[in-house]
């Protein structure tokens, strides 16, 4: 049995760790709240943009925008949104596992665009080629960061580096529940909407569509980054919460062992004294 002093040392180190996980849990709870707020703030815009796109799709146009054209698929690009930091439970590994599974099932040539350090580090070990990588988005990603990613993705698509683009991200369901999700980003599927009112368009519907579609891609990426951020903080909070609980269990167990060892030591000492005294008599 380990000495009392060794056990005490271990308890102390576990307690220190518990303090850290507890602090991380509270920090991520605060960040989760912020991330959720940003996610909710982005919703009305995304919703309205979708609406305008639907309305625009009603207009019979003669020109078709390149981002809407379906091409024979030879090259597929996955945009994988992961976090920059670890210690967030299964957040990254769940998404990466799903992505890797999908890639294995894709018969076409697959390339990657990674967002976040964790995804990049994982896929770097594989054989799949990277077209772009974005890291260090921070805890509060801005729209401009999403825009940058979107512009790169659109550029790849227009140059024929990709015939289809999928977005892989973690959808935020609740603080303890997040779902790895795949959505098709490009070509954009024209939404089917019901016939609506006659609109005046200024400039022409085609021109509006041409400036709207890239924005649509931007908002989709922005939203999935925000979803990912919220999921990440939720996952981290849950992971840190259970780590704190585990540390508590460990301390309890170690305390028990330590007390027992101390008791044994005392008993031994007493019996030695008693034995010694008996020998003197």
């Amino acid at each position: 049995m380990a000495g009392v002093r060794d056990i005490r040392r271990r308890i102390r180190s576990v307690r220190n760790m518990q303090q850290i996980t507890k602090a991380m849990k509270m920090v991520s709870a605060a960040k989760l709240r912020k991330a959720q707020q940003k996610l909710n703030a982005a919703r009305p815009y995304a919703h309205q943009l979708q609406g305008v796109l639907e309305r625009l799709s009603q207009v019979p146009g003669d020109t078709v925008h390149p981002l809407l054209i379906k091409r024979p698929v030879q090259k597929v690009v996955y945009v994988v949104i992961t976090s920059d930091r670890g210690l967030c439970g299964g957040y990254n590994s769940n998404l990466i596992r799903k992505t890797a599974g999908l890639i294995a099932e894709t018969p076409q040539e697959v390339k990657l665009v990674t967002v976040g350090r964790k995804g990049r580090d994982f896929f770097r070990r594989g054989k799949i080629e990277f077209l772009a990588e974005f890291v260090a988005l921070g805890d509060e990603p801005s729209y401009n960061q999403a825009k940058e990613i979107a512009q790169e993705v659109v550029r790849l698509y227009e140059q024929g580096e990709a015939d289809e683009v999928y977005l892989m991200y973690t959808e935020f369901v609740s603080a303890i529940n997040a779902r790895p999700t795949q959505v098709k980003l490009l070509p954009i599927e024209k939404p089917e909407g019901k016939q609506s009112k006659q609109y005046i368009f200024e400039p022409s519907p085609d021109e509006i569509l041409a400036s709207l579609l890239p924005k649509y891609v931007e908002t989709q990426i922005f939203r999935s980054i925000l979803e990912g951020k919220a999921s990440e903080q939720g996952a981290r909070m849950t992971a840190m919460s259970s780590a704190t609980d585990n540390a508590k269990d460990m301390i309890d167990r170690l305390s028990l062992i330590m007390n027992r060892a101390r008791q044994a030591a005392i008993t031994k000492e007493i019996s030695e004294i008693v034995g010694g005294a008996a020998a003197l008599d």
Partner: protein
Amino acid sequence: MAGTFSLRIVSPEGNVLKEDVEFAVIPGELGELGILPNHAPLIAGMDIGVLRYNLNGAVKRVAVAGGFVEVIENSAIVLADTAELSEDIDVARAQEARERAKKRLSTRTNEIDVRRAEYALRRAAARIEASVGKK
């Protein structure tokens, strides 16, 4: 001229404004658009510029940078890339940005830089113009 209509400005970062207004002027891509209550359904592209609206006789200004506007059923929804209410604008920062953009334009290097600088310059100018309305 009767009544008001609802004006909503949303940006990707959140809701900026929701108010019942009497009249609004939107910087459209092909020129300014004046919107009165009961306007016909409209979808228009928006330029960088200043959006003005009248409420109880007072004129308020919002600096917007590109996007769209949809008018339907007596409400106007502005989808702006960015939108700043005049009272939220930091004039000193906007002026700084304008100077920076001007300087970059005077020492032109390559195509993309010029476009970005021009964009920044116009945005800064719109912000300064929008903030004129504030005390």
